[in-house]
C-alpha cells in the first residue's frame, strides 16, 4: 500500500515562528521520483524538511511522507528516509568509512551490514580511495559526497537533499547532479531543495516552487517548461542573415542577446531552421528548444497564490 503512496502530501501545512511564518498553508501532493524543491533562501525548504523528519512540529495542518503521518509515527518516516543537511554536519576526526557505517547502524542496520553498505555507497559517490581518511581533511566536494553517502547508507526509499551543490566548483556540481540523477534509477526518490533552478531543471522530473513559505507552483518539469515554443539558435555573428532568411521561409525570428530566437516553432520549423543554416553556410553552434527557464516560471508565478493541490 505504501508503495504507491506519494512522496509527500500536505494539507494546510503551516509553521509559524515568533518572528516569521516559515511555511504558510501549504497544500501539495508530490509524486515519487526526483523532485526539486525550489525557492530563495528563507522560502521554507529547510523547515519543510525538518517537519518531514518530525524534527519540527507543524503549527497547523497535516503532513504525510511516503504515506506515513509524520505526527503519528516520525520514527517510521526516519527509518525510511535519508537526510543530507545543507550545513557541515560530519564528525571531523573520524574516517569517512566509520562515519557512514555508524550512521548506517543508527538507521538500524546490523554492524557488519552497515560497514559493508558504507563501503558500497562510498564507492558509489566516488570516495572509494579516500574512505579511510579522516573527514576533517576532506575538501568541500568530498564532504558533500560523504554527506550524501550517509544519507544513502541504509538504502532509504527517499532522500532529502538540502542544497547538495552548495559550495561546489562547476565540476563538482555536475558530478553531484549526475549522482542525484542516478538515484532515481536505483528506485530511490529524491527531494532536492535548492535555490538554483538550473540544478532542478537538470535532474528533476517534478518541481515544487516555494516563495515565502507559500506554494508557487507544483508540476512536472517538462509540463512547466514546454510553454513557450521558441527555438534558440546560435550561429555566431551572422545573425541578421539568418533572421532574414527565416523570415523568407515564413518564420518569425529575432535577434535576442546575441542569439536568434524563432517564435512559434514546431517540429517542422526545426527542419526549416536546420536547412536554412546549412544553405547559408553558417556554423551552427547551438539549436535548442527555447524552454522557459524555471526562473521565468518562478518569476511569472511568484507572488500569486497557486491553485490548491498544485497544477500537476
Amino acid at each position: 500500500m505504501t508503495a504507491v503512496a506519494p512522496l509527500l502530501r500536505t494539507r494546510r501545512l503551516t509553521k509559524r515562528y515568533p518572528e516569521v511564518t516559515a511555511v504558510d498553508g501549504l497544500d501539495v501532493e508530490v509524486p515519487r521520483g526526483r523532485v526539486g524543491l525550489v525557492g530563495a533562501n528563507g522560502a521554507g525548504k529547510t523547515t519543510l524538511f525538518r517537519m518531514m523528519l518530525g524534527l519540527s512540529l507543524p503549527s497547523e495542518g497535516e503532513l504525510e511522507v511516503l504515506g506515513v503521518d509524520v505526527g503519528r509515527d516520525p520514527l517510521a518516516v526516519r527509518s525510511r528516509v535519508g537526510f543530507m543537511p545543507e550545513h557541515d554536519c560530519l564528525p571531523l576526526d573520524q574516517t569517512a568509512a566509520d562515519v557512514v557505517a555508524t550512521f548506517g547502524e543508527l538507521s538500524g542496520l546490523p554492524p557488519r551490514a552497515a560497514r559493508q553498505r558504507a563501503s558500497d555507497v562510498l564507492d558509489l559517490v566516488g570516495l572509494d580511495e579516500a574512505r579511510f581518511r579522516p573527514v576533517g581533511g576532506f575538501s568541500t566536494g568530498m564532504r558533500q559526497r560523504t554527506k550524501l553517502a550517509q544519507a544513502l547508507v541504509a538504502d532509504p526509499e527517499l532522500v532529502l537533499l538540502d542544497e547538495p551543490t552548495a559550495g561546489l566548483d562547476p565540476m563538482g556540481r555536475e558530478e553531484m547532479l549526475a549522482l542525484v540523477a542516478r538515484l532515481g534509477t536505483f528506485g530511490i526518490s529524491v527531494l532536492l531543495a535548492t535555490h538554483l533552478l538550473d540544478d532542478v531543471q537538470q535532474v528533476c522530473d517534478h518541481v515544487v516552487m516555494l516563495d515565502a513559505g507559500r506554494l508557487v507552483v507544483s508540476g512536472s518539469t517538462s509540463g512547466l517548461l514546454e510553454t513557450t515554443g521558441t527555438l534558440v539558435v546560435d550561429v555566431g555573428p551572422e545573425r541578421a542573415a539568418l533572421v532574414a532568411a527565416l523570415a523568407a521561409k515564413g518564420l518569425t525570428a529575432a535577434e535576442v542577446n546575441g542569439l536568434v530566437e524563432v517564435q512559434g516553432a514546431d517540429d517542422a520549423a526545426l527542419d526549416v531552421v536546420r536547412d536554412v543554416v546549412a544553405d547559408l553556410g553558417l556554423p551552427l553552434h547551438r539549436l535548442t528548444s527555447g524552454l522557459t527557464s524555471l526562473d521565468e516560471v518562478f518569476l511569472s508565478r511568484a507572488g500569486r497564490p497557486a491553485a490548491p493541490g498544485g497544477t500537476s
Partner: protein
Amino acid sequence: MTGAVYDRGYRPYEGDRGGRTAARAALWRASIRRALGLRRPWRQKVAPFVLLAIVTVPAVVNVGVKYLTRNTPASDIEFITYRDYVGVSNALLVFVALTAPDIICPDRRQRVLPLIFSRPLRGVDYVAAKVGAMAAILFAFSFLPQVVLFVGQMLVSPDGALTYLRDNAEVLWQVPAAVALLALFYAVIGVAIASLTTRRIIAGASIVGLFLVTSITSEVLVGPREHVESMSVVAPDEVEGDRGDGVIVISPDGTSQRTEGFVVRVDRSDPSAAPLLNVAGLPLVLRDLVFLGHVDPGHPMSGLAGGGAMAVGVYALWVVAGLAVLVHRYHEVER
C-alpha cells in the same frame, strides 16, 4: 575531489533492520568506541588505558604483598579493602572530565545532532546512550580492578580459595552495587555539564571545577577537626555506639594479634551535614551505606541523624537534575 564517479551499480539492502532499540544500542557502542579511543589516533587511547593502569595498580600491589606475606603475621594487614577500593582514585574524576565532554560536545559543535536525529531515535535515546556509555566505562574501569583484587586475593589466600570466597561472599554484591552507584553518578553529572557547552575544554574545566569547589567548600564548612579526638581500647560492654571489627594489637616484640571482642571508641566533634555538598565525595557515602549499612564512623557525617537517608536523597537529586538537563538539551523536536 574531482575524481570520476565510477558506476559500480547499486545494491538495495534486503537484510534485517532494527528500530529504535538498535539505533540506541548503535549510538551507545559508537560512544564507547569514541571514549576508549578505538578507531581513533593513538593519542586518544592514552587517557583511558593510563587510567585503567592507575586504578589497577593498587590491586596488583595488594595481591603481591599478600602473596609475599602469606605465611607471616603481617598477612592479616589489609592495605586496601574492597570498600576503600571503590572510588579509590581521583584519576577517575579526571577521566570523567576528559571523556564526558569528548563523547558529547563535538556532536553539537560539529552539528552532527541533526544527522543523528534524522535516524529512528529520540532525544531520550540519545541521552540514554551517552550516559550509558560513560557509566559503562566507569563501571568497567572501577569493577575490573576489583575483580583483579578479589581473584588475586582468593588465589593467594592461605586458607584456600574456596574458604576465601565463602568468607568474602558479601563483597560479590556490595562491590558491583557500590561501583554502579558511583559510575551512574559521575556519568550523569559529567555528561550533563558537558551538554551545556560545545567546547570540550570548557566542559572539562567545569567538571573538574565542580568537583574541586564543592569538595573544598564542604571541607571548609566541616571545619578544622580532628577525625579522631581520642581513641581508646575498651571492653565491649562499655560500648554504646558503633563497634569496630576488632583490633590488631602489635606488641613491642613485633608479634601481632587480632583481638576480637574489643572495640575502638572514637570520640569526635559534632557531626556535620556539609559533606552532602561534596559532589565528588557523595557516591562514597553511598558506597559506605552499601558496605557497612551506615555512614563510615570516621566520616564527618557519622552520627548525623538521618545522614544516610539525606545522602541518598541528595544523590537522587543530582541524578534526576542531571538527567532533566540532558533531556532538555537533547529534545530532538524543535519547540
